[in-house]
């Protein structure tokens, strides 16, 4: 069981997992973003020897999250797949069979360029712009959100990280969950992703993922 911290928004409880995803207790939905499946494969196909263990570990982490939270459905807020199809996607299809009854929703991100047929084959429900559930909006990149005045937005895309500065010019940077007044940004689920350092303002919540725990700021 991974380390979790509860966070309340609009009277709903969201469990933030140190394994880079959120479990929405009321709806029993697992929310994650920026999986970039097939990224290692994409690089390896081009002759760049990224250790494939990254991909393996990402998949295993997803399984363990599914097993521990037992969600009714999964929402992926974009960039589920990194690029064009490759054999790692086939591995995903095989994996999908083991969770055949689990509905997966994908809010399309800029990397999701696979053909419609493929998503159908993988039994993934596609949402081209955004997905609304109650007061909550799910969109890949928050700047593309077309629902301005209402609801709380969950987004991904930027792979947020926060930098902690120490004495003597020392600094460390960690991936994080960001919760602003109107919207949240999830860390990238895949560990083979770069990060963008955010500068949180007062009143905003940031949860840094430090090894297997979460530290709140």
């Amino acid at each position: 069981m991974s380390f979790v911290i509860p966070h309340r928004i609009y009277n709903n409880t969201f469990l933030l997992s140190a394994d880079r995803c959120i479990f929405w207790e009321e709806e029993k939905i697992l929310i994650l973003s920026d999986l970039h499946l097939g990224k290692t494969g994409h690089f390896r196909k081009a002759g760049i020897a990224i250790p494939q263990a990254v991909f393996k570990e990402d998949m295993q982490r997803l399984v363990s999250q599914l097993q521990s939270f037992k969600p009714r459905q999964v929402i992926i807020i974009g960039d589920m797949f990194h690029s064009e199809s490759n054999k790692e996607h086939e591995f995903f299809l095989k994996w999908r069979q083991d969770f055949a009854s689990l509905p997966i929703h994908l809010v399309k991100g800029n990397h999701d360029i696979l053909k419609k047929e493929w998503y159908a084959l993988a039994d993934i429900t596609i949402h081209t712009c955004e997905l609304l559930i109650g007061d909550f909006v799910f969109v890949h990149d928050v700047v593309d959100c077309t629902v301005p005045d209402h609801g709380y937005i969950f987004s991904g895309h930027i792979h947020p990280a926060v930098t902690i500065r120490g004495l003597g010019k020392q600094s460390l940077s960690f991936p994080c969950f960001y919760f602003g007044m109107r919207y949240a940004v999830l860390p990238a689920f895949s560990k083979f992703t770069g990060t963008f350092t955010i500068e949180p303002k007062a009143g905003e919540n940031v949860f840094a993922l430090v090894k297997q725990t979460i530290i709140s700021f």
Partner: protein
Amino acid sequence: MKLLSTKGYNIISDWLAAKGHHPFLFQEQTWQEIIEGKSGLVNAPTGCGKTFSVFLGAVIDFINHHPDNYQTKIKNGLQLIWITPLRALAKDIGRAMEEVIMELGMGWKVGIRNGDTTMSDRQKQKRQMPEVLIITPESLHLLLAQKGYAEVFATLKILAIDEWHELLGSKRGVQVELAVSRILACHRQKQSKKIEVPEAVLENTNEGAVMVKAKKLNKPTTEDRKLSIWGISATIGNLEQAKEVLLASLKSKEGAAGKIIKAVVNKKIEIESIIPDEIEKYPWAGHLGLKLVDKVVPIIKNNKTTLIFINTRGMTERWYQALLNVAPELAGAIALHHGSIEQDLRLWVEDNLHTGRLKAVVCTASLDLGVDFRPVDTVIQVGSPKGVARFLQRAGRSGHQPDATSKIYFLPTHSLELVEAAALKQAISETFIESREPMLLCFDVLAQYLCTLAVSDGFAPAEIFEEIKKTHCYNQITEDEWQELLFFLTAGGAALQQYDEYKKIEVEEGVYRITNRRMAMRHRMHIGTIVSDSMLKVKFMSGGYVGVIEEYFISRLQPGDVFTLAGRNLEYVMIKDMTAIVKKSTSKKSIVPSWNGGRMPLSANLGLMLRRTFDKAFEMNGRTLVKKERQDNPELSVLKPLFDLQESLSHIPKENELLVEHIETKDGFHLFVYPFEGRLVHEAMAAILAYRISRITPITFSFAMNDYGFELLSDQPIPVDDTNVYELFSLDNLFADIQRSVNSVEMAKRKFRDVAVIGGLIFQGTPGEYVKTKHLQNSASLLFNVFTEYDPKNILLRQAYQEVLDQQMEEVRLRNMLERIQKGNIKIQFPARLTPFCFPLKVDSMRENLSSEQLEDRIKRMQVQLEKI
């Protein structure tokens, strides 16, 4: 064969005589070796005929072999490959060679091959190679990436490596080693095939075994076809090793091949320090230099052409402005030259240096090498040159005519730096010049090389393994390391077998190849070992190109900010298509870019000389100097008040002493240590010492370091005294203590970037391909994290850590220093207040938290206070 009796020699010496010259002894010695088919190394400074020593040797040899038709014989195939580290040099060398060929009435062609060579010229060269090919190490590897490359080298007689001292000690030098090993092997194979031919013919004609044997014994045919390797190098500390590295592939059971031929040239160098009117007893780095600009103007005016060498690009911009401010009449007669300036402008500067139209050029190392600018008669070095070799090299840029004197001024950026001038003079009089340590086991370069061979004709691992093991760089490679590298290139490391599509090098019947055309093309575009920061072009909104600048710098600017580049104030507008758009600005205030260039540490040689110079300063202390002494030691004499103060407050360390100062100020407890071993060693030593002290008592420190020493600062007394100090500087457990104290992970991360680019894990986007490769882009730090977590034993990752030890911490030097300290005396002092020695360090550690104006004010106050006491 006696050189003097050969036709080739006579033709050349007649040709020289007709121009009123005659050959130097070292040239004749080289020619003799060349006509005997031997290899070697010519040690000669630039501008004294080193090019002709090897080039004319090749010509003489050719004439000797074709005495009757040497003028008419054309299309001879490649005879001489001339490797040069600088593209800019190629054109001038080529021109000089063409002139000789033309005057001798020969039909040889000279070709240039580098990044600037056009496609059509490349095609022409492919159809018919010129006799002489001038090439950079990178382009030579590109040649090895061409199908059928072995053919090209079949006729080759000499492979010459110019400026070998520049290449040795870098990964480009390793590229040369690899190319030499391959070309020699191609040549050997070709020769053995050629010899086989007559045998086959003979057997077909059924003339019997006896004849065949006789042919086999007929050796001379192979003898005169032997390929010779010739290095040309300036003087360095390890010349013998330089030769051995270059000729390692020729080494036989009888020992190392080749001779060193030294040019005896007694070049006169005059060194003069620019001495400030007032010597500060409390010196600090960073402000004095520009204050001496008034003293520079007369030097510029009284000489024909002056080169002003400055260590950083940022400071060149400031100096250029400062010179124009004090001497506006120099506008148009002075110019700026550094690596970020647009190439056309740089070429314009170089042309005008040749013709003598410029009075002065403010430059960085960008003008260290290269062709001679005859009008240059004076050089000014601003700040520490960090090494004896570099100082000599720069001095040598002036007074190029064989009997002219090189004149160099040393301009200190703080008063203590004047000691360096004295040390440099002594080092030069003893020819105490730094060594260039050749690099070892660069797996990144080897990975790139193997892909290069895989792209062209493919390779058989057993054969290439034998070849590379003969090179100096890979002499110690183990079978395991080799297999690991091959596994990495062919299988991409461990993977999920059936879901993996890793493809790079494929094996077909024992031959390792890259067959995918796109991959091959991408590899060709990335051959090379110079990894630069990602650069953006800087352009005016109205069009017109200014230069290039690090993306890192631009990314921190806001639109409207004004910065200086190429001597112009520019207002940043926006970034568009990998180009920074700017407009002219009249703003007085501007940001001078701080380029991320590696700050060179003080060399070991200069450090030693410095310590010796302090010996002398100690000896002069406390007595009045006689006139002769003052004349002989101008720098130490003017610094006498500073040294007297140092000795009265603390101590002037002698050569065999290490000075340690405990000082308490309102900031806390300081420990200053002065090993004079350069900032990298000091950085590592500071961390190790802090770690070792913290084992005695729990304590935390902040560090500061410069080339002379380092500082530990704490809020509690630092427990270092006579009883434990030798132990604290002990060699015992050094390696383990390094691992525990130095943040080698962070350092390795930085090193890994270069290793990953060279080793083919990161492709720096190429302009046209920007969008297409987007999904393949990656940051080095992400890769580093991924490998650290998932493949920590990866061969390239290990190399990054090794490079940190070797280069970032200069581990060998660190050990030597500790050995020296153990043998000498450690002097612990407790000065009542800050000393002249510690002041620059103190200022450096204050710098981090203060803006420059605040800093200047505070330092002035401190200086006043300290001097009053």
